[in-house]
């Protein structure tokens, strides 16, 4: 045993050395590949556009593919649409490898991070239809004063009411709540054994609407304002009614989200966005519902908007063609076609009238565009919101002041 040890040890070192040498060799051999300055290989512009989308389903994929094909025919530039399984991850991979897609869906919370490391191009100001976008959407995609990318469409939150349960409770159109007190009283009337009056997700993306209605918000003019008295008032209002049983988080009634709570009639009213219409049509076609604007709180009307933009990679060699394609995809006709195909609202004001007349029963969503807030979009905001959401889940027993204070300190760390 002992006699062999030195040989073994020597061999071990030799093997380790060989491994290291091979590794180092491989490293230097690949060095040229690793050290490419980003996008060098693409700078010439291959002429073919690659587009990566995070699709909600076949309808969206087909609509985008068709639209891009129509543009290709018109402009003579070939383009290929790919759907991502996991968009943020695939985008990160593309940027790290220096070969990102030319155009892609980009969420506002990811914008600041990519803007900071120079991954994406700020082309918003070069668009001909720039002034047609809703101002709040432009703000949503503006970082450090630069309008980065064109909002592709948007959604807002509204109050979705089950009309059968509504009339069964003896309520009429005149009872549609316009204040917090009215909301609380109709929710109380609609609450029965096994059903809550109002349900919504346990997350800032729903509860935040109450904060907006109270006149608060997580970030105001670039400053963290999470622990404002308006926000405390909003969370206290929500907490009170969670505890008296007329409001509930969707997960507490055994539903994955508001739409499921409404569809399974575990809730008579829910707070959801435009996407609920597609889900109701597909999964719960028998449930009749009506869309109303969210009631005003002490600070006036308030809702949240959600949107994505057409991100353009800074490394793209086809910037001009890509911009042209974005212009085409955000045009009035095209956005109305998208809306018809898979439901979101056009991001440009000139399409509003046509959209309203095509969707007369959903105008409450569009009305929200006037006063909608959007979730904070600075770098690191997504983590802060995730943390805030984790705490909101225990709002029923928690202290609103304390959990807003945590959010405040987290926000201050990233708004500095």
């Amino acid at each position, binding site marked *: 045993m002992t006699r062999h040890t*030195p*040989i073994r*040890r*020597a061999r071990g070192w030799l*093997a380790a050395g*060989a*491994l*290291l040498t*091979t*590794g180092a060799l*491989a*490293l230097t051999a*690949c*060095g040229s590949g*690793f*050290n*490419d*300055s*980003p*996008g060098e290989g693409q700078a010439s512009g291959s002429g073919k556009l690659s587009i990566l989308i995070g699709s909600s389903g076949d309808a969206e994929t087909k609509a985008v593919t068709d639209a891009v094909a129509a543009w290709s025919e018109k402009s003579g530039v070939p383009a290929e649409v790919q759907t991502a399984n996991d968009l*943020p*991850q695939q985008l*990160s*991979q593309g*940027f*790290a490898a*220096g070969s990102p897609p030319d155009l892609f869906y980009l969420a506002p919370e*990811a914008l600041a*991070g*990519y803007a*900071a*490391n*120079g*991954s994406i191009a700020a082309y918003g100001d070069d668009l001909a239809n720039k002034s047609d976008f809703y101002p709040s959407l432009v703000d949503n995609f503006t970082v450090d004063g630069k309008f980065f990318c064109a909002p592709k469409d948007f959604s807002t939150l509204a109050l979705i009411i089950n009309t059968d349960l509504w009339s069964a409770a003896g309520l009429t159109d005149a009872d549609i709540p316009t204040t917090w007190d009215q909301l609380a009283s109709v929710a109380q009337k609609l609450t029965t054994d096994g059903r809550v009056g109002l349900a919504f997700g346990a997350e800032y993306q729903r509860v935040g609407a109450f904060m907006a209605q109270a006149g608060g918000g997580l970030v105001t003019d670039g400053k963290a304002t999470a622990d404002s008295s308006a926000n405390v008032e909003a969370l206290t209002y929500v907490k009170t009614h969670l505890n008296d049983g007329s409001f509930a988080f969707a*997960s*507490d009634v*055994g539903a994955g989200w508001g739409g499921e709570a409404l569809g399974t009639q575990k809730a008579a009213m829910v707070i959801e966005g435009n996407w609920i219409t597609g889900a109701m049509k597909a999964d719960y076609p028998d449930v009749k519902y009506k869309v109303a604007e969210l009631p005003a709180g002490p600070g006036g009307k308030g809702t949240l908007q959600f949107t994505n933009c057409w991100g353009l990679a800074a490394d793209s060699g086809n910037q001009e063609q890509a911009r042209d394609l974005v212009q085409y995809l955000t045009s009035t006709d095209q956005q109305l076609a998208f809306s018809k195909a898979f439901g979101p609202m056009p991001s440009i004001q000139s399409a509003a009238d046509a959209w309203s007349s095509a969707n007369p029963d959903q105008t409450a969503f569009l009305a929200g565009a006037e006063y909608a807030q959007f979730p904070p979009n600075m*770098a*690191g905001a*997504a*983590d*802060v919101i*995730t*943390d805030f*959401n*984790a*705490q909101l*889940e*225990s709002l029923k027993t928690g202290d609103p002041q304390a959990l807003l204070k945590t959010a405040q300190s*987290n926000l201050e*760390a990233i708004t500095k």
Partner: protein
Amino acid sequence: MSALSPARRRAGSSSSGIRRGEAAAGWLFTAPVLIILGVFLLVPVLMALWVSFSDWTGRGSPFSSNVGFVGLDNYAAVTTGGGLAERDFGTALRNNAWYVLLVVPLQTALSLFLAVLVNRAILRGRGFFRTAFYFPSVTSSVAITVLWLFLFSSSGAINEVLSWLGVNGPNWFSDPSGVVHNLLGAVGVTSGPAFLTGNTLLGVSWWDWLAGPSVAMSAFILMAVFTTSGTFMLLFIAGLQNIGGDVQEAAMMDGANGWQRFWRVTLPQLKPVLFTVLTLGLIGTWQVFDQIYTGTQGGPGKTTLTPAYLSYSAAFLSQQWGQGAAIAFVLFVIIVALTILQRFVLRDRPVSRRRLRQYEVPAAASGSGADRPRAKKGAQR
């Protein structure tokens, strides 16, 4: 070096004989593996190590000139930063520590129990039971996770069964409350003493460290035990079949009953297998990722967040590549440290005086032969 030289010469002298060129051939044959390991394992690991010390933002090469060395900044951000990154890391470690603490002993005990059961020659249909117990291990973790989400939903099969027993089951995957806290709450303790709630480790108060796994994490713990015990059962079966019948018979002749034979004879001989199972278990449980990624993404209330998932989300979703890599290396250190600790605990030890006394013949004639049944023949590798 001088100690090595005779060995060297001996190794070198062989090259003149009939075995000349054997070493070269050896290197030639192992070269492909060495190169593949180097390029696909060693280099990426070294790159990741560099990323953990750099301010790389995920764009272009981590070795390009505009990426700077930031020392231990990334490690500091997740361990002493005082911000959200530190609290997230603390929470993830807390969750995973409870997961390891419960899964490793449970899966080891269960797999050993199953192995002993199906190892009996007398058992009818052993092949069937072995297959049945092993089956969950074959199924993909993603498929099992989906199944689990389905079984443990608020109106799922598990809660249905619980309702027959008059138990109102929790809404498993959306219940962030800690099990230990819940048990304490049942006896009226709802908030901890000031020295536990007031002091924090990695941004998480001691009271929260002691919260136990959340109800959601408990469902994952049950899943891990269910899926992995089949694999480890196979290892234990292999170990059991290596144990010669003669030692058992000798023990029987000495009057040991079944229980004593298991604890005093079988288990000590299974020590090498036990070591393997515990090591694999420790490594696997500290790296839990698939279930979290496909199941809960860290929710509810971050109570199923694990360091492996946090590393992924910090890098890919939040663009904090340095912090993501730093978390991965901290996790690596934890795993290595625990494996070494475990090896130390399970090391072969001489039999203690106290233990030895049990085997000594009461009379004066307690020769050296008396402790022979205790000799760890099987335990030595």
